[in-house]
């Protein structure tokens, strides 16, 4: 099993999506994240184990990225490989075999088009047993409100990557709290800090996806 986790982690880290993929050149012809996840499920491995391999791989490429040893293309290919693996877990979740712990409505804040980090959070939260409603990027306050209306009792997650857009989270939170005072709002993204989250009235902040899942788990426990 640990062998499998290691193999999948490598595929995710290197951005090896599937067998046909020509990227990266040195892994040409080998199984990718897609095949490995499929085989693992067939052999009866737990979705949790598959998720663990993905996160391990993403962690590794993420730390290379922050050390300038990997760049955006590598990061995107890794996210693509992770998506390929996670796609096999979707039917598993949706069949009702696993009971969803709750729903997270997630989106990148108004004016902001960065979605790499937000997508990773969405995938890991989904893998952590929650239903995810992804509103995409440049999400207006109205869109957040409409989504809460459509999915009562959900938790809201906001991501921001620009110092010029993170301030938009404050007005969005204010509007949400006014209309739905019991809705929990979680914020994140590179320029966001715990201090900033506290100041704008967010209920939770995490610097990474795993932390976001931990906060959600505590909330629904």
């Amino acid at each position: 099993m640990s062998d499998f986790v290691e193999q999948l982690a490598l595929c995710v880290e290197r951005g090896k999506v599937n067998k046909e993929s020509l990227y990266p050149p040195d892994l040409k012809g080998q199984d990718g994240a897609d095949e490995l996840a499929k085989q693992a499920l067939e052999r009866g491995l737990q979705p949790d184990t598959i998720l663990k391999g993905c996160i391990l791989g993403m962690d590794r490429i993420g730390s290379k990225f922050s050390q300038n040893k990997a760049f955006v293309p590598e990061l995107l290919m890794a996210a693509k490989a992770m998506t390929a693996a996670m796609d096999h877990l979707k039917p598993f979740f949706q069949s009702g075999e696993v009971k969803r712990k709750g729903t997270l409505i997630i989106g990148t804040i108004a004016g902001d088009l960065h979605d790499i980090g937000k997508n990773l959070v969405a995938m890991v939260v989904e893998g952590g047993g929650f239903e995810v409603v992804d509103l995409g990027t440049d999400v207006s306050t109205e869109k957040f409100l409409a989504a809460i209306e459509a999915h009562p009792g959900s938790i809201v997650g906001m991501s921001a990557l620009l110092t010029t857009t993170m301030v938009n989270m404050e007005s969005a939170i204010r509007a949400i709290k006014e209309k739905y005072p019991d809705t929990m709002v979680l914020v994140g993204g590179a320029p966001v800090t715990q201090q900033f989250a506290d100041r704008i009235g967010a209920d939770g902040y995490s610097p990474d996806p795993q932390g976001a899942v931990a906060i959600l788990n505590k909330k629904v426990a």
Partner: protein
Amino acid sequence: MTFLAKVKSGKVLISDGAWGTFLHEKGLQPGECPELWNVTRPDDVYDIAKSYIDAGADMIETNSFGGSRFKLEHYGLADRAAELNEAAAAISKKAAGDACNVLGSIGPTGKILIMGDITEDEIYDAFKIQAMALAQGGADAIVVETMTAIDEAVLAIRAAKENTPLPVICTFTFEKTIEGDYKTMMGVSPEMMASAVLPAGADVIGANCGNGMERMIDIITVLRRIAPGTPLLVHANAGAPIVQKGKTLFPEKPQDMFKLTPRLIEAGANIIGGCCGTTPAHIAAIARAVKLYEKDK
């Protein structure tokens, strides 16, 4: 004299400063399309262009950085790309008059080719529409700027060269890595950039955004070494942004840029202007520094 002849005359030329911050000061709201102002608020756009000419710029850009159909799509304006770009160039041309030049600005589409969510042909066509409209509106050159990926930059250069008679400038945005060298967020070094965009047809290359003047000196030093005969352009930020009370501030003052300009010229820059956070006062300071430098020479 043609734009390229002026650039190659050996005189250091002055370019303009920031547009985005200026538009916001004039009332552009978050979520509003800057390029739409070329038809709805042409006088305000003209004011910006004119203020840089008055500050001493030899050339000004156009309000068309996000004028590709992929950026305009975001505001439901994709089909108006040609109209908005042509209007952008016409406004700057009016401000520049016959003595100064207009650089038609083309920024990134925001799409990433290696992800396969878009084809090369689609990107090429988008840049072709933009470049042709800018030429139509009166641009003297095209500036493909703030690029980080080689594939996208090369498509933009080719689209401009193959569909307009204009010379093309190409600038990338580099960041200093932990190792101390410079790379774009896509992992492209100045060396990799030059060896791709020169064969694609760029007449002038350089760097814009992402760095203040100090770091631009490092980048220009590298580019000068790899491309000894190519004119080099710099559009430096007014330093690295700092956030204070939810507002983004750029710390480099006109006086700081005045002091650094001679070193930037020594490093090999032929055209010097500003990017984010710079104002007509910064451009006037650079122009003064260049004059003094040329006099002392």
